[in-house]
């Protein structure tokens, strides 16, 4: 699963430690999510969405689904 956590954090000039504390997790967890090593649970994804005032799918998206959507677009406009 891909995510925009690093970009959203950078836009607000927050450190990983600040974001971790805001989401009530460790800095290691934020780093693992940002680098794609760990997928967050649904409750944590909801907390992130609430914090950034965005929808979950605006932060997290499934890689397979994204590539599938790209394929469909390609086929549609071919």
């Amino acid at each position, binding site marked *: 699963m891909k995510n925009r956590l690093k970009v959203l954090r950078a*836009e607000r*000039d927050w450190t990983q430690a600040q974001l971790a*504390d*805001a989401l009530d997790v*460790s800095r*290691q967890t934020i780093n693992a999510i940002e680098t794609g090593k760990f997928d967050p649970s649904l409750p944590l994804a909801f907390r992130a969405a609430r914090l950034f005032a965005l929808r979950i799918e605006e932060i997290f998206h499934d890689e397979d689904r994204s590539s599938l959507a790209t394929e469909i677009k390609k086929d549609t406009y071919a």
Partner: protein
Amino acid sequence: MNQLKPPQNGYQSRIRTSTIRLAQWNGAWLAATALMAFGPKFLWNKTLVFTLLAVGLDVAVGVGMILATKKYILGLDELQQKVYLNALAIAVGVGLIASVPYSVMGSYGVIPFKADVSHLIMLMSLTFVVSFLYGTWRYR
């Protein structure tokens, strides 16, 4: 662009407090176990009542340590819980798998020393530490 600082929940300080409490319970259990193991010989000359009291104290502190560990794990975030529980699962598995052959080797004199449960505890502790460090390194 929002430059406001995010809200703080104090996760780090909460985990620090919880870790210190768990370490205190571990220390207490170690002390109670030492008292139970060495007390009969060195402190009360094998008086049964004192030995039974020491056993009761060790079990009671052991239960407290288990509850403190449970509380500690529940306080961890989801990734740290995953790393901790993976390490525990590997340690328990290794302990279980190693215990039977070790006991058989002890019974048939394959090993030149007495097969003692403390060896298994050491093996499980070491396995837990290695697994935990590996898990932490993997998601660093």
